[in-house]
């Protein structure tokens, strides 16, 4: 899968290419807005990693042009500008995500994958946490490569949690995902599904933990070994 990295700092773009290479991505590196414009007109990329401060112009201008052409390529903006207004402007200009420097390469890859896994995007396959795998195509959960039988609602909860790996999924999001807009949801229904799912996963030896964050939502993470 080929990504376009538009970053004027040569050292950083080389390092990004290296890091993204390890994660399994090929990258084209460009350093100016003019080159980026040309490349985006002729080549289709899986995603664009765009730095805002370019020597010959603002990265946001490229982003706006891209969106003006109705080009849906996911764009992840990298910037040193962490200011409040900058953040809002970036997202309003059509950025899919926004990372303020200095960022962790791991986070960049995770966010990139989140974008690539969105409907219509190119990353399909499966999600992994420890020995738990979730295949997005046939919505099948496996522990240690052993397919598991889960009810459709438990599967839906698990899919949502795994798609948001490392992030909290609010209770509201889970409700919307499972019940859609249809009717009333018993106040503890979600808790019941999460509880069942949690039990099944631990019974089957999955080394993952579903945390409840009271008043906020749920988060799935690799099981922490007892603190040494």
């Amino acid at each position, binding site marked *: 899968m080929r990504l376009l990295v538009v970053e004027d700092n040569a050292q950083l773009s080389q390092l990004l290419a290296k890091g993204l290479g390890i994660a399994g991505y090929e990258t084209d590196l460009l350093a100016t807005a003019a080159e980026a414009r040309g490349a985006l007109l002729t080549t289709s990329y899986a995603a664009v990693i765009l730095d805002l401060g370019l020597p010959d112009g603002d990265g946001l201008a490229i982003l706006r042009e891209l969106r003006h052409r109705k080009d849906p390529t996911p764009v992840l903006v990298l910037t040193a500008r962490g200011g409040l207004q900058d953040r809002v402007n970036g997202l309003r200009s059509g950025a899919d995500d926004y990372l303020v420097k*200095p960022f962790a390469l791991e986070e960049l890859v995770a966010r990139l994958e989140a974008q690539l896994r969105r409907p219509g995007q190119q990353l399909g396959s499966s999600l992994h946490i420890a020995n738990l795998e979730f295949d997005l195509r046939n919505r099948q959960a496996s522990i240690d490569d052993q397919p598991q039988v889960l009810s459709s609602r438990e599967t839906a909860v698990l899919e949502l949690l795994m798609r948001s790996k490392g992030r909290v999924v*609010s209770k509201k999001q889970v409700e919307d995902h499972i019940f859609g807009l249809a009717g009333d949801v018993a106040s503890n229904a979600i808790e019941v599904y999460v509880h069942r799912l949690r039990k099944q996963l631990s019974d089957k030896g999955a080394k993952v933990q579903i945390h409840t964050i009271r008043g906020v939502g749920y988060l799935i993470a690799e099981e922490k070994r007892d603190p040494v």
Partner: protein
Amino acid sequence: MIRFKSIISRIVILHVIAVAITSILMSLALSWLLNRATINIHNDAMEEQAASVAHHLVARPDGSLALELPPDLQGLYSQPYGRYSYAVVDERGKTLFSSLKDNAPIFSVEPGAAAVQFLETHHSGAVISGASVRRAVGGKTVWVQAAEDMANRDVLIDDIVDDFYKNVGWITLPILLVLLVTDIAIFRRALRPLRQASEIAQQISPARTDVRLPVSEIPSEVRPLVSAINQALDRLDQGFRVQREFTADAAHELRTPLSILRTRVETLDDQRIAKALHLDIESMSRVVGQLLDIAELEAFTIDPTERADAQGVCAEVAESIAPLALEQGREIALLGVSTPVWVKGNAEMMKRAIRNLAENAIKHAPPETVVEFVVEESGTVKVLDRGPGIAPEERELIFQRFWRRDRNQQGSTGLGLSIVQRIVELHGASIAVENRVLGGAQFSLHFVAADKTA
């Protein structure tokens, strides 16, 4: 010198003084004119009376003069009535006829006096005023005098003069007052552009330094002041821009090398060294981020009309910080109301403040404990932990920049709480620090509740 606070009050006071002086002068002028008019009427009447008396002077064949007054005139000059009198005096000053009882002249006559004279004399305590008219009758020159005792003047004229103020003079005061009210209205109208400019000037804040006062509507007398203010605003704006640009430049210059460093470390082969370096970079990044936050806050103000949902803000912070907390073995819980709580403020800034409090709480909370966020209906947000708490003598110190209890503690900048403090100040909110009964610290942010309908 009396100092007036407003132009209007200055105008009103000066105008009232002017009105008082004008009404006195006008009354004096009017009564003087009225007096002149009555004197003229009196003089004309006296001259006419003298002329009509002269009309009845007849020259006898012996050369002497006779006065044959008709009965109505005789009645007018009769002694008991006493108001009017006449006399006819010849060239030598001898009284030929007189209505006075001692046959005396009314006015002494000087030879060669003018044909018509208006004279005044005192006669047994009374003021006698009248006219002396020269006439030639039967080859003789005589002076016919007619006069009126001023003590017995015409009642009608007396009434008009006496009641002048009561009947006519008062009208000047209301006229002048109406003029005063009209003038105040005119001045208020003329000053309206200044008032509008003041309203615009109120919108100026570090966040809105682009506001300029309108010059076109301003009266030319005040325009130099308004222009000077606009120029001062230009310089101020420039200052803020420099500050903001510096913050942006500094952010770029510091964060890009940190990114390079971080990415380089993350792609190292030796994961053990990478992990150690990673922690160093992490704390360095935090310091840089917080310094830039402080720089940004220096040039930041909140639009007074802005409002935010404190509950939503807390939920977002709890959501974003939960993975970090879980990674470090602490739990997060969001308690209190679960419906929106609208307060005056900027959501992003509130998020930063609450996040700083939460990071602080996670850092000090023992493992396996819960860091709680509590949102109250009143607009209060509390962050509670089960850490060691804060000693009373440290409750002021913790908000100072770079203050740390333990200067060697890794990842602590001593900036977090000063950022919270600054954000609280910007919001007109307040912060309270307490220790919990069963141990731990409680930070309460009291935001100003916003209008629900706004």
